[in-house]
């Protein structure tokens, strides 16, 4: 095998400005974080709303929730991002369309499309988790809440949601992990996040194995951090006595 090893590749200067390849990787991580945070915020807000809607007595609310989930779960993520990046701008009104094409840089348009696309995709999954959490609350709790005079809104706010969100913390955190991993798909619409950087660097330096390994390690590290965050949240919101060993 004629492969020249170079594990110090990250510290090499790129030849463009003063940066080293490490700077490029850090930029990539930065954009990854931006997409993940924006997308996850959209997903939590919209997903919780839809999840609640799917459990309300109103048939209209339920239908809206079900339709949303059906559409956004049956189209692959990649196609959804492509739709937001390539298709939707064409249907924007002219003035916005011009601003989009001319005034925003390529990275920014890709960033916005990717964040919205990933956010809406993940919202469908969060919706299902929230719905499952709400449906798992025993009907006795609902009865007790109503018997005390709570309105439906109060019932959700004080009885149902606090319990169901605690219950779905583990699967929600795995959705968060998926969301962070899925930011990599944004590289295919042109966002300069970590996978993009990885491709570029490996083309420049031909040190493919090293750079791929570093990026793999970074993802493993991100995952470990997310698991740590999840454990912290679970402990923080634990109800004493409810889970074994919580006393």
């Amino acid at each position, binding site marked *: 095998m004629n492969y020249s090893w170079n594990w110090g590749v990250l510290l090499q200067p790129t030849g463009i400005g003063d940066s080293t390849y490490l700077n490029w990787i850090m930029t990539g991580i930065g954009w990854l974080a931006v997409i993940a945070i924006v997308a996850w915020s959209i997903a939590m807000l919209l997903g919780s709303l839809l999840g609640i809607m799917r459990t309300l007595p109103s048939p209209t609310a339920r239908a809206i929730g079900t339709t949303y989930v059906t559409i956004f779960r049956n189209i692959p993520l990649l196609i959804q991002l492509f739709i937001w990046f390539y298709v939707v701008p064409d249907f924007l009104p002219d003035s916005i369309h011009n601003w989009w094409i001319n005034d925003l840089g390529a990275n920014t348009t890709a960033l916005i499309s990717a964040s919205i696309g990933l956010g809406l995709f993940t919202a469908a999954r969060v919706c299902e988790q929230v719905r499952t959490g709400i449906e798992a609350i*025993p009907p*006795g*709790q609902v*009865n*007790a*809440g*109503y*018997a*005390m*005079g*709570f*309105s439906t809104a*109060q019932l959700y706010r*004080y*009885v149902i949601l*606090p*319990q169901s969100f*605690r219950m779905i913390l583990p699967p929600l955190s795995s959705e968060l992990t998926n969301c962070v991993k899925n930011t990599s798909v944004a590289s295919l619409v042109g966002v300069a996040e970590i996978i993009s950087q990885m491709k570029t660097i490996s083309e420049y330096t031909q040190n493919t194995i090293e750079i791929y390994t570093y990026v793999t390690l970074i993802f493993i590290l991100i995952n470990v951090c997310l698991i740590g965050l999840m454990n912290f949240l679970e402990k923080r919101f634990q*109800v*004493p*006595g*409810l889970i074994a060993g919580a*006393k």
Partner: protein
Amino acid sequence: MSEAKVMIDLQHVSKWYKDFQVLTDCTTQIRQGEVVVVCGPSGSGKSTLIKTVNGLEPIQQGNILVDGIKINDPKTNLNKLRSRVGMVFQHFELFPHLSITENLSIAQIKVLGRSEAEAKQKGLAYLDRVGLSAQANKYPAQLSGGQQQRVAIARALSMDPIAMLFDEPTSALDPEMITEVLDVMVGLAKEGMTMMCVTHEMGFARQVANRVIFMDQGKIVEDCTKDDFFNTPRGERAQQFLNKILH
């Protein structure tokens, strides 16, 4: 006694689950200060009947009035009415994510609009009344069944109800904890609280009930004074039931 105000008025109440009729033409009145025990074999509809009183179960025919206000009138503020009638459930239904103190005060604050200080004071007073002041800062999962049910009674009392509904309050308790709950209920009855209790505890009925209602297959079969019921029951079904239960 017969001049006292009618608190709960059931007029020809009928209810169907799809095609199955669960309540047939149930009529009875409970006056202020009366303690009425509702008993009968399982499937007789007694739990369903008591749940119609505060509207947790809707009815298709007949009228229900609580303190003169029609339950089944769409214009009635059902939440407000429910806040004035206390209910105690078979499975306690304390809110597991809230501390005991919070369980006692949350509906006072959010439904009745009391201040936090006032709600806490009242809740703790009733907690002391049921003998559980020491548990104020614990969580439901840390209490025994009997303790949880006593807290549930205190929670209902904190709302200063005009009547109390009990749906098999001791059926889910281990035998040694039944007494502590019954003692609280006897105390309440002796103070003149209007009570409607679905229960198998005939000892309790003999001690404090004014009247006994016997239900079978969705109909009120017997509705007479306590003495009449235990000594000279008219119907054969009631007699069979009494024989089984009192042995």
